[in-house]
């Protein structure tokens, strides 16, 4: 029986729909364990992101959860000076370029000069 649209049939628990969701999840736990933010601070940041997404028209049915999670992770990283918007943007472009310059099947690596 489908209780809500998009509800996966996961009787024994989720977990992740894609590797990036697991990576984002683990990053938050690792940063918290390192004492870089409190869990209360994290929960508040995530709650805010969900409210913002909801207001922007996301029906928020649970399938976009890790998008909110990642947005909150970026927000808290910037707020606590773990990274900067410029740095993140630059690194994203570097990864994009690395994919384009790496032959298919070879490991993707950032070149030292980037």
């Amino acid at each position, binding site marked *: *029986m489908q*209780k*809500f649209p*998009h*509800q*996966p*049939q*996961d*009787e*024994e*628990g*989720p*977990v*992740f729909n*894609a590797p*990036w969701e*697991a*990576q*984002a*999840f*683990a*990053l938050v*736990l*690792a*940063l*918290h*364990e390192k004492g870089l933010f409190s*869990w*209360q601070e*994290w*929960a*508040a940041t*995530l*709650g805010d992101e*969900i409210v913002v997404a909801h207001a922007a028209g996301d*029906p*928020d049915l*649970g*399938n976009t*959860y890790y*998008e909110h999670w*990642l947005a909150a992770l970026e927000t808290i*990283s910037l707020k606590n000076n*773990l*990274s900067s918007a410029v*740095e*993140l943007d630059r*690194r*994203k472009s570097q*990864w*994009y370029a690395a*994919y*384009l*310059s*790496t*032959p*298919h*099947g070879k490991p*993707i690596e*950032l070149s030292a000069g980037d």
Partner: protein
Amino acid sequence: MPHDHHHDGHEHTEPPSDIELRVKALESLLVEKGLVNPDTLNTIIETYEHKVGPRNGAHVVAKAWADPEFKQALMADATEAVASLGYCGRQGEHLKVVENTDDTHNLVVCTLCSCYPWTVLGLPPAWYKSAPYRSRAVSAPREVLGEFGTDLDGDKKIRVWDSTSEMRYLVLPQRPLGTEGWSEEDLQALVSRNSMIGVELARTPGQDTEALK
């Protein structure tokens, strides 16, 4: 094809989606700065994908059904009692166990985001994180239960527990009738994840677990 001058067509790798690039960017920067260790990340993923799950909670519930002393300890201080079984929280949160009785049924939600007793239930199912569940568990709990196929007597009280980052809840379902003398292990099979969130009851003996999917 933009690269058709290459005879094999394999001179590059298709970049992943924007969201994957965002994660890669953040992760690689944080690792470089020494703020996270890649081994720690792998351990966390491994743990949550394979080791932590609703079986932990079923163990706790079955033990509480079978062992009155453990149940007493569990109701008094659930954080401590589940830790004695080896299930420890990573976020310093407290766990409270709420017991279903003949008069009262308990239902757990997190209206703010999706706080959930990870140590005993693993990661929350998608519906638990959805806006409809988060709001309707509070405004129309009986209806929500009905959608899960759980029809309670009209005079049974429903208590809804709103989780926070400091306090998580686990429902102790009522032990099904006809299980007198059952071993803890057999009892565990009757405890579904959903029964520990409170949207369902524990399975009854003979109920085909597959049919409950």
